[in-house]
């Protein structure tokens, strides 16, 4: 699933939660971040929650097409391991 917003933050997070709950019904959770340039901790922890659920249910979880800006944010927040992202 491709996320359309350029910036994901606390104001979007509830809507995003609903989207992810729907997505969780699929066999694999693949999130394409090609459009996303910025995200905050509320979004990161939501992705971590999603990854945990996938692991609990032996589903695949992947963040795809991460932009350098977002990679920088992940690096700065030291959340790469929690998100399963290779820098």
């Amino acid at each position, binding site marked *: 699933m491709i996320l359309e917003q350029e910036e994901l933050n*606390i104001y979007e*997070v*509830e809507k*995003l*939660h609903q989207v*992810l*709950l729907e997505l*969780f019904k699929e066999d694999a959770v693949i999130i394409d971040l090609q459009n996303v340039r910025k995200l*905050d*901790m*509320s979004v990161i*922890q*939501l992705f*971590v*929650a*999603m990854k*945990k*659920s996938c692991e*609990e249910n032996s589903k695949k979880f992947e963040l795809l097409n991460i932009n350098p800006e977002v990679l920088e*944010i992940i690096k*700065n*927040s*030291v*959340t790469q*391991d*929690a998100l399963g992202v290779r820098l």
Partner: protein
Amino acid sequence: MNADLELFCDDVDEQLTFMENALISMQENGEDEESIGALFRSMHTIKGTAGMFEFNAVVSFAHTAENLLSEVRDGKVALTEDMIDTFLEVKDYVQKLVDSAVNETPLADADTQKVAELMKILKSMLSTASTDESSAEVDSVEELSDDADSGEALWHISIRLKPSFFTSGMDIINMLSFFTLLGELKKVVFIDRHIPNIEEINPTQAYVGYEILFFTDSPYVEIEEIFEFVIDDVELHIFKANDEDMLKALLENSDAVEDLEELLTKNAFENVLALQEVSKQVEEVPKKEATIQKTIPKKQEKKSFSLRVDSSKIDQLINQISEMVIANAKVSQRAAVFKDNELNEAATILSDMLEEVRTGVMNIRMVQVGDSFNKFKRIVHDVAKKVNKEIDFEIIGGETELDKMVVEKISDPLMHMLRNSIDHGIEMPDEREALGKSREGRVTLKTYPDAGTIVIEISDDGKGLPKEKILEKAIANGIINENHNLSDKDIYNLIFAAGLSTAEEVSDISGRGVGMDVVKRNIESLRGMVEIDSRPGEGSLFTIRLPLTLAIIDGFLVQSGNTKYIIPLEMIQECLELDDHYKEEMAGDEFINLRDYMLPLLDIRSNFNEIDSKSKRENVVVVRYGEYKMGLMVDELFGEFQTVIKPLGKVFENVAGISGGTILGSGEIALIFDIPKLIEEKIKN
């Protein structure tokens, strides 16, 4: 001063007292783990709280002392006599720095210099002390003007976002980038174990945190400032990475989900690894383990719940209870008039209950004198050192309880008398040896309850008071004339007269001759009295007697002529009827033979110009104060009465033998006898 600052000052005061007590205790009984711990905690607390107010000079000074204490605690440096003296001085200068910071007045130049000097000494005592003195000096000056925590250090920072964090509008990721402006992030671990799964998460709540090792030359306050705007939305712990106590506390308080120790070990947090190494070594030495186990329950035992209450609130409560006592006396009196037995019974129950409440409230004000008297150990130590004398000082009966206000007010007079004992009473060590005495002079401060009063005795085994010199001086100053007829005791008591100092050389410790009269006045203002006894070559004994409390007493109601009087119940030994047999025996004298004791009598009726008695019977109330006994001749005895002491006002202030008044249930006034004064007057006559 605002409330926070007041609280800070109280806290510093308390911590410095703990510190002083711990130091004095170690001076007497040698080094002990618990006192060193108490010392360290006091300094640590002062540093921490001073930091909150940005009193940097205090933080800096306390920090230097804390460093040395930390090494003493870890056994890296041995605690020496000199070190204890230095810490006692540190205590004084922390107080000066705090006063200067709180009052916003600059420290005197001499004090600033002394602080810098002390910091230098403290640093030189460290196991890692620099041998380059000039650099140490530069450091200390810099630290004083700047901050305690200057110098590079590795900090451990533990952050947990509270669920409400996101409502602050701040982003933790941006905040992390601030760290890189101040120093180097050595280790950062993202704590994600509290994040629930996608079905359970509330996306607007925060669940995460960080553990960080941060290397910087910025002080604590600057690190804390990063969190300035979110301080209510995070749980934050910032401490030096080598602070084992803080690290242990952090690890112990972490929950099972986090399993912080395991996580930090996995991420090679060097301070956690070092701590594990230390505890491994401890486990390997069974003896040490035993001591640790022994100290833990001891610490727990000491934990007791205490509450800081403004003393004016207790005073207010006592005043209200006093009014209730008076109101209840009125109820009892009306019940008697109406012969209403049920009302009478209810009033009696109420009266008993009021007495219990009164005792309870009074007990709140009671403190053990030892807590306050311990500070004299320090004074004795300092004075003895100054005059090059050796003193063995002992406090006996420190567990005796006395009203806190009385303890505070008696403190200055006692201090003065102790100084006098050491400065004038005790001889120089060589002189003592020549006289066949031990080199160490003995000074004792003894406290015990006696007949409704508290007795405080200060005794020494010095040379005693110079009787001849006192007489000479008193005659020269016109206090007495040459044809006096004074007993030894009277002569000794002359030292309480204003302007009499027999010290040949006036020292800065005592001997200015402005002390002892003030001492006596202070004691008398507490309704107490002071006496001296002395034997040449053997020593002196100062005896102070103080009432237990100041507001309500148990009294005994009597009548003479038309006036009702109260006698403090605790001073009464017995009551007897003055029958014809006694009257015959008296034969006009003012004495009776009470079981072979010649008891002087004071006729209240003639003494206070009362009209003749309507009662045919006469009674004698035998009172005792210290070693003196006397019989008060009164007309009627009414019995026990809870007495609320009310001042009589200026007109009656100087009536000898009356210390105050009280209101009876009927609205009548009863006068309260000042028994010590009455006895004194009787002896004079």
